[in-house]
C-alpha cells in the first residue's frame, strides 16, 4: 500500500479495495466534499503540518459531534492506522481475517467522540498515536469472541449499550426503540443457557418461555411509558417480533466494507471555524509532558542494564517472549513475563509518586491510569531510540548509488518502475541492490546489538525474522520522517 502524500490527501482519502481472484488491490480514493474542504483550509494556512491539522479537526469533531466534515477528516486521517492495525493483528493471530479487523477499526475511527473520549486527559499524545492505541485494543476486544452464533445466541451475547447503538444505527426511534430494548431486557433476564456450554448456539425460546417474557414485559412497561393507553398488549408473538428487530439491527450493522459517504444534506451548510493554531501549537509544547518524559528517561536509566535490555528487546525490537527468555537464558517464559510486568509496575508506581510530589496529581485509580497511558505512549519509542540512531548512522556507510535507491524508494516513495527509470538501471538491479542494503542493515544491526548490549542472539529464525521486520518497518515508516 502506498503511503499518502501531503495534507490534502491525508485528510480526504479512503482506501478502496478491489477483489481479484486470490488477491486484492487497493488505492486511495478522494471523498469530494472532504477534498474541497481541506484544500480551502490549506490555501489559507499553507505552513501548518499534518499533526496540527489533525489536532484541529479532532477539536472540531469533539466540540460539535454532529459536524460530519470534521469527523470525516479524522476518519480519513486514521485510515492508514486502521490498515496497519488490521494487517499486523491478522498477521499475529492467524485465525483472524484482516478485512474484519479493518472494518471494526474503521467503524471505530468514524466515531471520534467515542474513540477520543479521554484524549484530553493524556497530555502529550499525538492524535495518530492515541488513535492507534485505542483502535488496536478495540480490534482485539471485538475479535476475540467473534465467530458463528445462532440468532438467540447473538442476542444474549450483546451488552445493552451495543444493542442500543445497533438499533440507533439501524434507524429506530422511540417508542419503538424503547420497546425493543425492554423486550430484550426481559428476554435476557429470563432466558439463559441450561447447560454449562452451548450459549453460542442457543435455541430460540419456546412459546411458554416467550409468554413468561411477555408477562414480565407487561409488568415492567408501566415504569417505562407514561402513556400506557397507546402501548400494545404484549404477547408471545409480540416479543418474538421485537426480538427479531433486535437481531436484524445487530446483523445489519456488521456488514461489508464500504466507503464512508458524506451525502448528508447538512454538510454543505457547515460553517468553517477558523483554526486556532496558536493555541494548538502551545498545547503541543506542553510543559507537563516534557517533564514527564524527562522523569521517565531518568527512571529508565536507573534500572539495571539487564532490566533495560529486557524492555528494549520487548518494546523496542518487539521480539516474542520465548526468544527473549532464550537470549537472556531465563529458564521459564512466565518468569520473563512476570519480570516485564514487575518493571512496568515499578516504573508506573514511581511515576505516580513523582507526579503527586511535582504536579499535584492525586493518587487515585483514574489519575494513575492517565499516567499509565502517558507512560505506554512514551515507552515503545524510547526503547527503539538507540536502534533507530544506529540504523540512521549506518546509512552513511552505503555507496552513493545505494543511498539514491533508498532515497527514491523510501523517502520519495516512488514505485519500482519510477525508481528504475530515475536511476537508469533495470528493475531487477534495483530490487537486488535494495535487498542487499536490507540484508546489510540487518547483519550490522545484529552485530551492533550483540556488542553494545552484550547479548548473543543465537540466530533463532523467529529472532531473525523480527529483526528483518524491524528494519523493514524502519525503512518504510520511520526513515522518511527524518528527511522531510
Amino acid at each position, binding site marked *: 500500500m502506498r503511503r499518502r502524500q501531503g495534507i490534502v490527501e491525508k485528510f480526504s482519502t479512503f482506501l478502496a479495495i478491489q477483489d481479484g481472484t486470490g488477491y486484492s488491490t487497493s488505492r486511495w480514493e478522494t471523498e469530494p466534499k472532504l477534498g474541497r474542504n481541506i484544500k480551502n483550509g490549506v490555501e489559507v494556512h499553507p505552513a501548518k503540518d499534518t499533526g496540527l491539522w489533525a489536532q484541529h479537526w479532532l477539536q472540531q469533531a469533539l466540540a460539535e459531534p454532529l459536524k460530519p466534515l470534521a469527523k470525516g477528516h479524522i476518519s480519513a486521517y486514521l485510515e492508514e492506522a486502521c490498515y496497519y492495525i488490521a494487517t499486523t493483528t491478522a498477521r499475529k493471530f492467524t485465525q483472524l481475517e484482516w478485512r474484519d479487523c479493518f472494518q471494526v477499526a474503521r467503524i471505530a475511527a468514524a466515531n471520534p467522540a467515542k474513540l477520543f*473520549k479521554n484524549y484530553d486527559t493524556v497530555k502529550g499524545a499525538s492524535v495518530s498515536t492515541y488513535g492507534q492505541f485505542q483502535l488496536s485494543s478495540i480490534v482485539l*476486544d471485538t475479535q476475540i469472541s467473534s465467530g458463528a452464533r445462532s440468532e438467540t445466541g447473538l442476542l444474549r451475547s450483546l451488552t445493552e449499550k451495543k444493542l442500543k447503538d445497533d438499533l440507533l444505527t439501524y434507524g429506530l426511534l422511540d417508542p419503538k426503540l424503547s420497546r425493543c430494548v425492554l423486550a430484550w431486557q426481559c428476554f435476557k433476564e*429470563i432466558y439463559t443457557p*441450561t447447560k454449562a456450554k452451548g*450459549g453460542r448456539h442457543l435455541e430460540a425460546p419456546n412459546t411458554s418461555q416467550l409468554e413468561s417474557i411477555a408477562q414480565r414485559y407487561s409488568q415492567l412497561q408501566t415504569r417505562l411509558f407514561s402513556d400506557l393507553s397507546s402501548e400494545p398488549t404484549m404477547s408471545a408473538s409480540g416479543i418474538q417480533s421485537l426480538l427479531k428487530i433486535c437481531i436484524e439491527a445487530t446483523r445489519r450493522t456488521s456488514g461489508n466494507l464500504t466507503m464512508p459517504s458524506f451525502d448528508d444534506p447538512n454538510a454543505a451548510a457547515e460553517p468553517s471555524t477558523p483554526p486556532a493554531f496558536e493555541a494548538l501549537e502551545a498545547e503541543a509544547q506542553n510543559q507537563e509532558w516534557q517533564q514527564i518524559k524527562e522523569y521517565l528517561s531518568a527512571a529508565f536509566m536507573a534500572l539495571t542494564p539487564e532490566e533495560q535490555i529486557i524492555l528494549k528487546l520487548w518494546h523496542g525490537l518487539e521480539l516474542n517472549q520465548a526468544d527473549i527468555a532464550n537470549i537472556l537464558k531465563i529458564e521459564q517464559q512466565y518468569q520473563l513475563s512476570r519480570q516485564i510486568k514487575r518493571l512496568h509496575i515499578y516504573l508506573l508506581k514511581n511515576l505516580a509518586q513523582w507526579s503527586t510530589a511535582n504536579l499535584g496529581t492525586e493518587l487515585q*485509580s483514574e489519575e*494513575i491510569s492517565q499516567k499509565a497511558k502517558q507512560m505506554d505512549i512514551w515507552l515503545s519509542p524510547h526503547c527503539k531510540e538507540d536502534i533507530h540512531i544506529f540504523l540512521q548512522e549506518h546509512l552513511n556507510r552505503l555507496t552513493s548509488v545505494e543511498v539514491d535507491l533508498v532515497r527514491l524508494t523510501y523517502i520519495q516513495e516512488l514505485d519500482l518502475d519510477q525508481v528504475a527509470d530515475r536511476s537508469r538501471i533495470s528493475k531487477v538491479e534495483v530490487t537486488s541492490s535494495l535487498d542487499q542494503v536490507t540484508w546489510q542493515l540487518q547483519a550490522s544491526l545484529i552485530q551492533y546489538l550483540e556488542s553494545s548490549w552484550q547479548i548473543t542472539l543465537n540466530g533463532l529464525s523467529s529472532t531473525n525474522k523480527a529483526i528483518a521486520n524491524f528494519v523493514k518497518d524502519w525503512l518504510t515508516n520511520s526513515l522518511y520522517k527524518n528527511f522531510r
Partner: protein
Amino acid sequence: MFTATELSIAFPNQICLELSDRILDSAWTSAINHSNDAARWNAYLNHLCLSTLLSEFQEEFGLVVAPSTDRANLLSIWEFVNGTAISLGEKRAVIIPADNADTEELIVPQEWVDISTWAASYYIAVQVNPDDGWLRVWGYATHEQLKHKGSYNSLSRTYSLDREDVITDLSILQVSLELSTDERVAIAPLSVLSETVATNILDRIGQPTPYSPRLDLPFVQWGALLENQSWRHRLYSQRIGQASTQVITNLSQWLQSSFDQGWQSIESLFTTELEFRFRSIATDTAIQRGKQIDFGMLLAGNPIALIVTILPEIEAKIGVILQIYPIGIQDHLPAGLQLLVLDETGNVFRESLPSRSIDSQLRLQFTGSLGARFAAKVVLGNTSVIENFTIDPS
C-alpha cells in the same frame, strides 16, 4: 477461536485463564440450588470466577485474597444478584462476571454500589466465555467512577460505565492497591424495615418466578431486605423450597435413556480418580445416575452425591437402590447423615441409620410398582434435601 494463551499475548496487562471442561462441569453441578434458570446461570458464572481467580489474584497482586463471605451466603446472593465480593488485602472488591461477546460497558447491579455494607472500592470486570473455554479480567472501575461517571439505568437498576472509562490495565490496580486511599464515596441510606414489614414482603415475593424479584419493590426496601442476612436466607429458602418440590424425576424415562438436568453419569460425577471406590452394582440391565447433594457450607470440602440405580424387574416392577457416596477427596461420609425414603403421603417407609465417620456409603433398597411416587430425603442436623421421584411410563 482464541485460546487462553493467545489471549494472554493479546492482552499482556490483563488476566486470561483457561476454563477446562472439568472446571466448567464442576461449576455447573455445584450451581443447582437455585429457583430458576437465570439464577442458576448467574451462580454458574460467579462460581467459575471464584474458583479460578482467587489464587491468580493472590499471585498477581501479592496479597491475601479471600471471598468476603461463606458459601451459604454466596448462594443466597447469587439467587438474586450478579457479583461476588472478595477482599484484596485490606481492600474490598466485587467480581462482576458477564458472558457478553462485547465489552462496550461494565454493568454493576445497584446492590453492590448503594448498599453501604456491600459497596467496594473496586469492581472487577470479567468476560466469561464457557463455549471457547476461557475467561478474561478485562478491567476494573472504582466506586467513585461508577457513582460520578457511570450512568444509572433505573429500569434494570444498574450502574454502567463505558468501555472508554473502564481501566483496562491491571497494573494500575496493583499500583492503586498500594498507593490509593479508599475509593468509595458517600451513598444514601436505605429504608429501615420492621420485622412485620419484612415478613409481609417476604410473603409477597417468596413465590418462585423465572427471574429475580430484585426489581419488584422500591430499591430502598429491597436493599434493606437483601442486606439483612436472615431475611435474605428466608427469601432464598422459600423460593428454593417451593421450586424444588415441583421437580419430579421420572425413573421410567431413564429406561429410554432420557435423563433430567442434574443427573450425571457415574464417571462424570466423581471428579477425582477415587471413583474406583464406587463398587458398581451394575448388571447389564441396570441404569445408574447420580446427583450432587448440596448442603452448602455444612459440607464444604466434603461433597456427597445421591446415586440411584434402577433394575427393571418382571411384572412391571422396578428395583430401586439409593446410595449416598462421598465424591470429593475424602473417602468417608461425614458423621450424622441419614437417608430416608418417603411415600406419596410423606410418611417414612425406609430409613438408614445415621452415618458414622467410618462409613463410606449409606444404602436403601426397595421395589417400586408402576405409577408409584416417592421421595429420597437426605438429612444432616437441622437441614435436609429432598429429591422427588415417580415411576410413570405414560
